[in-house]
């Protein structure tokens, strides 16, 4: 049986296709302003890439912020459940997930079957998310691709006390004007994100082994800052960004 999962996030939209439990392929595009069109486009592009007809796909599940805006799917499931299932599918030893996406961050605790036991989400602002990092990278005139690794060269991380994106940007600008090294500022930004996630992890009772998912998992600086703050190693899969879409495709297999 062939199934698909479509994860429509605030910044990017992801798709995954599974055949009898085996991952056939994944794809990622920018969401833009039209969530449903992005969901449709990423799905069609992936089918084309895999040489599959739409009719070959038995069931589709949507997830993410735009999950209810796509009408061609069989069901919409939250990204919290999908990330649990996806992480379990990719690595069945995992017990907790730190997901940092474009506009929110969450910590999810799962059981040995991948079912969600508990979760916590950031409150309704972009602090400590992918969007926050984009704003900071722009203020520092650093390409997002190298942003993460630059912080690993920091001598002494700056202190960013504000977590609000707008206030933190002003703080970063004043650090720049004081002549602080870029590496130290970036490391400070990563530490402020780690502190926020650690508080959530504490609230939800996070247990190792931990995997990190979402676009921000590609930023090694954040991963290292989190490992230091939490005192444990964090696994990052090559499928971190499409983990939710994979989880949705796995759930679609079991759908009745």
């Amino acid at each position: 049986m062939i199934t698909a999962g479509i994860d429509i996030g605030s910044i990017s939209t992801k798709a995954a296709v599974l055949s009898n439990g085996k991952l056939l392929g994944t794809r990622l595009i920018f969401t833009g302003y039209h969530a449903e069109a992005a969901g449709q486009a990423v799905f069609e592009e992936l089918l084309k890439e895999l040489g599959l007809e739409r009719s070959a796909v038995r069931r589709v599940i949507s997830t993410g912020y735009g999950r209810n805006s796509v009408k061609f799917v069989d069901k919409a499931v939250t990204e919290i459940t999908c990330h649990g299932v996806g992480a379990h599918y990719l690595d069945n030893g995992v017990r907790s997930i730190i997901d940092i996406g474009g506009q929110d961050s969450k910590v999810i605790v799962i059981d040995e079957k991948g079912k969600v036991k508990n979760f916590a989400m950031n409150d309704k602002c972009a602090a400590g998310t992918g969007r926050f990092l984009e704003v900071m990278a722009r203020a520092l005139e650093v390409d997002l691709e190298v942003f993460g690794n630059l912080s690993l060269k920091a001598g002494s991380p700056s202190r960013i006390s504000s977590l609000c994106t707008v206030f933190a940007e002003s703080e970063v600008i004043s650090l720049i004007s004081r002549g602080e090294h870029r590496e130290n500022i970036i490391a400070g930004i990563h530490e402020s994100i780690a502190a926020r996630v650690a508080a959530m992890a504490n609230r939800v009772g996070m247990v190792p082994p931990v995997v990190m998912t979402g676009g921000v998992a590609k930023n090694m600086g954040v991963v290292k800052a989190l490992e230091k703050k939490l005192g444990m190693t964090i696994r990052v899969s090559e499928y971190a960004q499409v983990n939710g879409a994979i989880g949705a495709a796995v759930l679609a297999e079991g759908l009745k």
Partner: protein
Amino acid sequence: MNDRVARGAGAIPDEKYRLLWDNIPIWHRTRWLSEKFASHNACLVADTYTSAWCGSMKYIDENNFFDSMAEAYTRIYLNIGVDEMACMVLAMVDKYNVDGIVMHSNRSCKPYSLGQYDIAKIVEKERRIPSLILEADMVDERSFSESQVATRIDAFMEMIKASKQ
């Protein structure tokens, strides 16, 4: 009420999950919230707020009015410690046979909201029942983010449904 109980008529058409509400309602979104929960066949069957102020009337003794009145005041839900609050929540969990707790972390009532994470942990430990925390305000609509709250409720209900399978 007794008539409805006798007929087995609940507050929503197809009640499958029973939830306990904690804190003052989010007054400006009560309809949206009850419809959201009903769409998951979940009903808010009881809450800690309705009897928060009158629940300690039983301590008043007309023959020792001043002392007992002082006791009644200090025994009001918000005036007791977290452990005592958790005991009252656990008693309600048992009485109303609930599957989960929905806690409104209310910006306009800090005394009520303080300790909710601890109460949630105690209930989870004692009864294996999950809690959901919603950040909002009882009157200020600006503190309410609909799609964030919807995702949290949907995920919470998916979790409860999966655990009951």
